[in-house]
């Protein structure tokens, strides 16, 4: 095996290049910059043979990806925070046009106050655009997920863009080892991208033209069906990848020590990795608690949440807030359980603005929830 000891950003770039996209269009933004710089290095060294388009904004980056993907190219980009928000209009476009673009988003705070650290409000605020959203918790998972994202996006029953999220700095700038699958393994796994349709001067067709309500209604319905199908396909692709590479990080969720658990913690991203230590410590202290790390938030894993809701009371940590309501994962978990009247769900907001969340914090949150000492949702670690 070949181990690459490098940052999450550079490992994401490695995976992206090994997937052999024909077009990358990107605009730099901290903390995504080192990812697109790494791709530029691959261009300079002749290791990336696709077209690398430097554009003047993220709106243009996504627009260029849309054009390239519509012309039948495998397409990749990366962004973060305000860059993702500037893409907002074109994110909807990419999904409604059914273009299998793969994008890494480095989860960074939205300003003001100006802040480059992690929270997940950037991608969470884009959850209704139709993109599939996956959240990683280690550099190995980043590598494996970027490869799997192309397979998923281009699957004939999906044909939707996929956003692979990694937390700012904690993953983007932290070096950890990742086992790099061989180019042959990746080529065999992905195959060539054969577009279902494309802009082709030899076979002219019109796309994105004016259509009436009845057809538009069908477009929305078809997107929804594709996302629902992705619930089956994401775990299947993860298992197929495990067969070839040996690595598996979970399907829609990653379960950790959930057997006989009376409480299950739900968390995402880097907190999802740190949570494993908290679960070990809590089990040592006699608590029957497990972890379900949420990898995929769109499509939302409703059925699996209901299943664990039947087994255990749930504790949810959100590194995001839908201002005026509550943490989005907390809200959506409760919605999934609306007819499971016996399940207690306790929520925490934690780590906004990049505030560190340690396993001791996670233990403390779980203890408070188990003892019933919290309000429905608590802002954890707020310094008065």
């Amino acid at each position: 095996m070949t181990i690459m000891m490098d940052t999450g950003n550079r490992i994401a770039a490695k995976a992206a290049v090994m997937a052999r996209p024909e077009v990358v269009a990107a605009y730099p933004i901290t903390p995504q910059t080192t990812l697109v710089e790494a791709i530029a290095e691959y261009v300079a060294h002749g290791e990336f043979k696709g077209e690398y388009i430097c554009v003047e904004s993220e709106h243009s980056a996504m627009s260029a990806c849309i054009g390239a993907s519509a012309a039948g190219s495998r397409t990749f980009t990366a962004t973060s925070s305000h860059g993702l928000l500037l893409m907002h209009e074109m994110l909807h476009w990419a999904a409604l046009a059914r273009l299998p673009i793969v994008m890494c988003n480095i989860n960074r705070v939205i300003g003001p106050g100006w802040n480059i650290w992690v929270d997940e409000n950037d991608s969470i605020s884009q959850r209704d655009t139709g993109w599939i959203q996956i959240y990683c918790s280690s550099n190995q998972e980043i590598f494996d997920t970027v490869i799997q994202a192309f397979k998923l996006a281009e699957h004939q029953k999906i044909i939707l863009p996929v956003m692979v999220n990694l937390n700012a700095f904690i993953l983007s700038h932290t070096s950890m080892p990742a086992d790099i699958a061989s180019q042959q393994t990746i080529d065999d796994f992905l195959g060539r991208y054969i577009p279902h349709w494309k802009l082709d001067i030899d076979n002219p067709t019109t796309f994105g033209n004016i259509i009436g309500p009845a057809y538009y209604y069908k477009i929305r319905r078809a997107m929804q069906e594709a996302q629902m199908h992705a619930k089956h396909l994401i775990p299947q692709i993860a298992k197929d990848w495990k067969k070839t590479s040996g690595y598996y990080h979970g399907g829609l969720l990653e379960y950790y020590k959930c057997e006989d658990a009376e409480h299950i913690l739900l968390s995402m991203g880097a907190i999802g990795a740190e949570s494993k230590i908290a679960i070990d410590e809590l089990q040592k202290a006699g608590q029957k608690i497990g972890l379900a790390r949420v990898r995929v938030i769109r499509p939302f894993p409703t059925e699996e949440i209901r299943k664990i809701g039947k087994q255990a009371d749930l504790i949810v940590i959100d590194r995001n807030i839908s201002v005026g309501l509550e943490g989005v994962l907390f809200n959506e978990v409760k919605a999934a359980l609306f007819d499971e009247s016996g399940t207690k769900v306790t929520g925490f907001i934690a780590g906004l603005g990049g505030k560190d969340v340690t396993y001791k914090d996670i233990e403390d949150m779980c203890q408070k929830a188990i003892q019933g000492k919290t309000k429905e949702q608590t802002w954890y670690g707020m310094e008065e």
Partner: protein
Amino acid sequence: MGHLHFEFREGIIVSSKSLVEICFHGRGGQGAVTAANLLASAALQDGNKGVQAFPFFGAERRGAPVRAFARISGDEIHLRSEVYNPDIVIVLDESIMEIVDVLKGLKPSGKVLINTRKKPQDFEFSKQYTVATVDATGIALKYDILVGGIPVVNTPILGSVPKILNRVTLKSIQQAINSKWTTKKELSDRNIKATQDAYDQTEVSF
């Protein structure tokens, strides 16, 4: 390419699986982050399955105090939070100690490695902690390891680490340096010699 790439050597025995956390203190531009990366890569070569290296998450300025971190473990590391209680503190620039409390959070059994011409006993806290010293600046000057005319101590001082941490070998540190500068063999050779000098010249208090 600048990243470290190597074939993993299986079956090397790691004496302990427990977690070691290391904090580097230096000034922006001194290469604290590179040092943390090289150390973690070397530790991986030595069979420690879990390694991590990361900068302090924030804006960095040349000359201002900076920190970088490394974690070494026999098992996969799930920690993603900051290092609060290091086992080892490595000081690249001793003048930092006038403005930064480098001992903050250091475990009672902790060790401190300092780039200085002084002896370990010259530091008051050597009564409390194991202190190792090495003149990494002198070694960098000897081997002409300079950036913009300023001696770069990050690689030389790594040669001293095996003297206070048995989880990583000098050979692996040198190998990590070698794979970082694959296209600049002459520079890599000077850095490797510097680590050998640092290893030989390190003084440790007990």
